[in-house]
């Protein structure tokens, strides 16, 4: 457990020393979201309708940006080898890395989303639901993405391949996440969607680190 905290601290420290990477993903998120009104038109009713989907899709894409860097630097400089050879189970260290990835690239999206939601004329209730869905959903994205990042480690064309592998697996998260906000806006209540999203997260917390660890061991061999 202590090693897990150590690796989270290390990755946060590294992120602090290369701030530009974190900020790039954030600005990407903002720009993509802001492009939609320009492409579709500023009509408030229409914007309100597309807001959940747009914000969620933009969050998916912004998460994808950082995914490839989840294990690649550690793989390149041999740290990953040392992690695999450390007496601490690799699964714990991988869990730490996923948590750090979420803190660096998922959590800022959650915090930024309500501000961007205002651009789409969402009311306070809808913004609240949006934040909750992203809060439950972005860890899920990091967890599933980690499997893809580990599978494509050190492969030529890994970045494009990574999105090909991971995006189809993001479909349920997108449906329940954006759907919850939609359901809230149309007065159906977001409870059902949210509990399904949380169930998915629970499932991923159990299986994703395990699959990621297996994929990493294969990549190291």
């Amino acid at each position, binding site marked *: 457990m202590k090693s897990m905290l150590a690796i989270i601290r290390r990755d946060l420290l590294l992120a602090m020393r290369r701030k530009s990477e974190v900020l790039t993903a954030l600005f990407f998120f903002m720009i993509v979201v802001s492009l939609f009104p320009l492409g579709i038109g500023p009509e408030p009713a229409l914007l309100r309708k597309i807001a959940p989907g747009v914000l969620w899709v933009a969050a998916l894409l912004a998460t994808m940006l950082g995914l490839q860097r989840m294990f690649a630097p550690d793989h390149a400089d041999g740290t990953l080898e040392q992690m695999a050879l450390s007496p601490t189970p690799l699964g714990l260290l991988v869990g730490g890395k996923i948590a750090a990835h979420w803190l660096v690239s998922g959590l800022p999206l959650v915090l930024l989303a309500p501000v961007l939601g205002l651009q789409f004329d969402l009311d306070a209730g809808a913004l609240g639901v949006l934040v909750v869905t992203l809060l439950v959903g972005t860890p899920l994205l990091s967890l599933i993405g980690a499997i893809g990042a580990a599978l494509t480690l050190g*492969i030529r064309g890994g970045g494009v391949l990574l999105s090909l*592998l991971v995006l189809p*697996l993001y479909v*349920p998260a997108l449906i329940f996440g954006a*759907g919850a906000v939609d359901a809230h806006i149309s007065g159906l209540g977001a409870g059902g969607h949210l509990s399904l999203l949380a169930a998915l997260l629970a499932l991923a917390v159990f299986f994703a680190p395990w699959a990621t660890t297996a994929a990493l061991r*294969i*990549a190291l061999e």
Partner: protein
Amino acid sequence: MNNKIINWFRYASPQSFYPLAGRMVPWFWALTAAFGVVGLYISFFVAPTDAQQGEGYRIIFIHVPASWMSMFIYCVMAAWAGLGLIFNTRLSGMMASALAPTGALMAFLSLWTGALWGKPMWGAWWVWDARLTSELILFFLYIGFIALQSAIDDPRRADKAGAILALVGVVNIPIIYFSVKWWNTLHQGSTINLTKAPSMAQTMLWGMLLMALCFWMYSIAVALMRARAIILERETHTEWVKQLVEVKS
């Protein structure tokens, strides 16, 4: 019982599987042709014309079996992949890679025939029907599997990485299917359902079953042929491959 297990493991080595598969392939092709001829005859000439949909509905005799196969092949692929990870047998990975293109073809065929059917039925090539949408995502999963395997140079690593992806995919397929279905009912509430044929006649059911068997035999035949090609490719440096008649000549 014991004997059986030993036998299975004997055929798990590429060397003994190769000639066995070679002997089996013609039989599966013959069955494909037999089921295909009878199945197509029933579907086109015996099955009655549908009262609402006219003659156009007959495409389901291709569409439905293709959809079944595309889902079934992914499960078989994942099963082989799992076996390969557990027992570390080389053949399992080869079988998984051999099945993937056929599965992708089936998914594509299902999408294509779905579009062909959709046009006269609903006046649109594509509708966001739950089944069509999940089929599309399944197609992406196949493409991802094939792309991942072809991007890795070392075949053993490709097998193992593909296996993990296939297993992750097989866990996700039901989740994706139900989420898409849920999404579909919320957004459209439409009653059109692609595969719910109106009051299926007995002969229609027979036609569909025969066509499914035909697709089944075809998939096995093609997968075996592809597996043989993969074995030759990967084992070129071994003695037994050099001794093969077809390699020598």
